[in-house]
């Protein structure tokens, strides 16, 4: 048999009583799943084309559509999951590497769901964030171990003592949440604009990814972290100077060990100009930086970038969470990085080989704990900030990450969800119905950046408020008192080894 039909992922239920044949679904589906038959005045659906993005369902004015998982099941088999058969069928047909988008969707343990927070009772009062100040302000960058002041022992300082040396350049965040690296190319310019506007409005940062910086985004440089990745796409002096900080991307949580991958379908004229690559060509970043084969080479690149920007900007390094993440992170800090970004197993991507996304790396929870502990053991925790990334779903995850030791977190997937993403994992096709992961002008205009920015600001605001509520509940009124404060956490249903690595006590154990 030359071609074995693949079991469809989804079925589209159309309630014929409700369908008014208005054809919104037909017009909106970029996968052409819905078609209108003029003769019968009916709309029908080719479920094989449905990717489960729920765009049509969201826009149907009569709620006539419901997207469901296809109930068709293979004979029950604990070993073989249905999707595996589908993968094999596809590969048997194409002989290619399977691609996917977004973060790992496999059922590995999510440690966030096994960690619980503390709250005040009796012995210390909880603090009401609506009535008392509650501080989330965060500074990212290298901090000295101590401050040296002129005439330190002066008894009555009428005015502030004079500092002998000021701390190096820091990134000031109004909330410990940044938007993670998502390149122009992998996402649309409107998506980039939404992120940039929201970051600058809220007082935090977004990250260019390895997509370069589009002309329209230069005005938001003060809230931009520009990335330098192995492909060096879009990197030039002006680009480096445009951002508030520079991040060298070594690895990405969704695909540790391999480089970025932008399918040629998404490389249109603007992307080509911004990335400085030919139109329509696949932009495949090398797996390693070919000028970094060891830690001392990384040090050279860090200092080359610092030189290029006159030491005015923090330079960080992004690594994916792998088995040796803790020693690697200390090496990175010792190499001179002002911040280390760690991207965990569930970090998203616009395109990655499915097998790598699903099988490589470690969960971010363990990575944060290991890195923070190790940096403290080596006495260099102050020398760099730690930004955690990879699958933060709620403000609860974020506050737990900070209590484990992260200075701030990057959110990517949740930001895209705020923009409409339904995690259909088809980013690599360039057919994103929500106008996010596409460059098709018919689709990109679906994301109005004014709305996008507003929604992102709302998300940041909502999560910040929730974080304040939780902090207040713990009787803490400044985020730095929670940062690395693992006494605020307890584990449930975790093994002793997990608890040891996370550095937290089991629930029920007092201090």
């Amino acid at each position, binding site marked *: 048999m030359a071609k074995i039909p693949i079991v469809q992922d989804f079925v589209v239920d159309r309630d014929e*009583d*409700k369908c*008014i*044949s*208005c*054809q*919104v679904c037909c*017009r*909106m589906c970029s996968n052409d799943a819905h078609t209108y038959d003029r003769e019968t005045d009916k709309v029908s659906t080719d479920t094989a084309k449905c990717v489960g993005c729920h765009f049509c369902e969201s*826009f149907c*004015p*009569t709620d006539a559509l419901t997207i469901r998982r296809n109930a068709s099941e293979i004979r029950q088999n604990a070993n073989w999951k249905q999707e595996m058969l589908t993968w094999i069928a596809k590969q048997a047909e194409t002989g290619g590497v399977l691609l996917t988008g977004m973060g790992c969707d496999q059922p590995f343990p999510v440690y966030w769901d096994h960690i619980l927070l503390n709250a005040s009772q009796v012995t210390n009062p909880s603090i009401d964030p609506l009535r008392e100040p509650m501080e989330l302000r965060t500074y990212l960058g290298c901090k000295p171990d101590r401050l040296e002041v002129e005439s330190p022992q002066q008894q009555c300082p009428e005015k502030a003592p004079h500092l002998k040396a000021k701390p190096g350049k820091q990134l000031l965040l109004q909330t410990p949440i940044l938007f993670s690296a998502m390149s122009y190319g992998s996402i649309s310019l409107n998506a980039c604009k939404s992120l940039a506007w929201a970051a600058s409005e809220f007082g935090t940062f977004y990250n260019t990814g390895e997509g370069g910086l589009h002309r329209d985004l230069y005005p938001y440089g003060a809230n931009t972290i520009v990335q330098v990745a192995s492909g060096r796409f879009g990197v030039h002096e002006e680009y480096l100077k445009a951002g508030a900080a520079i991040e060298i991307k070594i690895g990405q949580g969704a695909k540790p060990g391999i480089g970025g991958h932008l399918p040629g379908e998404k490389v249109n004229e603007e992307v080509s100009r911004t990335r400085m690559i030919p139109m329509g060509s696949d932009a495949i970043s090398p797996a390693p930086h070919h000028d970094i084969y060891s830690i001392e080479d990384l040090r050279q690149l860090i200092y080359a970038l610092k030189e290029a920007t006159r030491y005015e900007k923090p330079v960080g390094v992004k690594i994916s969470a792998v088995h040796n993440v803790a020693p690697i992170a200390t090496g990175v800090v010792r190499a001179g990085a002002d911040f280390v970004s760690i991207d965990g197993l569930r970090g998203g991507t616009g395109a990655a080989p499915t097998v790598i996304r699903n099988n490589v790396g470690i969960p971010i929870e363990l990575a944060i704990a290991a890195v923070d502990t190790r940096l403290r053991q080596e006495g260099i925790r102050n020398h760099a900030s730690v930004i955690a990334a990879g699958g933060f779903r709620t403000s609860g995850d974020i506050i737990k990450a900070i209590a484990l030791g992260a200075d701030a977190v990057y959110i990517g997937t949740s930001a895209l969800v705020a923009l409409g993403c339904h995690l259909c994992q088809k980013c690599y096709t360039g057919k994103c119905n929500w*106008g996010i992961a596409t460059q*098709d*002008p*018919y689709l990109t*205009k*679906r994301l*109005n950046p*004014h*709305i996008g920015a507003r929604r992102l600001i709302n998300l940041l605001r909502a999560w910040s408020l929730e974080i304040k509520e939780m902090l207040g509940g713990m009787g803490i009124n400044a985020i730095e008192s929670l940062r690395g404060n693992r006494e605020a956490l307890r584990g449930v249903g975790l093994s002793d080894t997990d608890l040891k690595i996370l550095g937290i006590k089991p629930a029920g154990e007092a201090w």
Partner: protein
Amino acid sequence: MKRIVIREEYCMGCRLCEIHCLVQHSKSKEIIKAYKGEYPKALPRVLVEEKEYLSFALQCRHCEDAPCLEACMTGAMHKDEETGAVICNEDKCVGCWMCIMVCPFGVIARNTEGKKAASKCDLCLGEKMPVCVQHCPNEAIVFEEK
């Protein structure tokens, strides 16, 4: 006056504006009934113009010096004193279509089902906001003072 402003760069061509306009101008004002149970079916007063990936929703611009007002021989076409909207009094309209002839935007349609009358945007007077604007999922048409 408050006008409907078009931001064509965000119009995704879903035509939800047309659908909700039709419902608003139907007898029942219920979407499924308006489409499946009312004859004659109401007409939408807004039309989405499309070429390639460019699209936008166009309805009466409610001109200050509206040519349709000049052309109307029965006085059916008039300006609402309060809002400045150009409104067609369908009772007075005799269906001569002169307004259609002179409209520079082509936003007046013929309603030939039932009583012959010019069909055009009335800014959904009485509503806080025209329904097309209310239901535009991408804010590609906005209602603002201009």
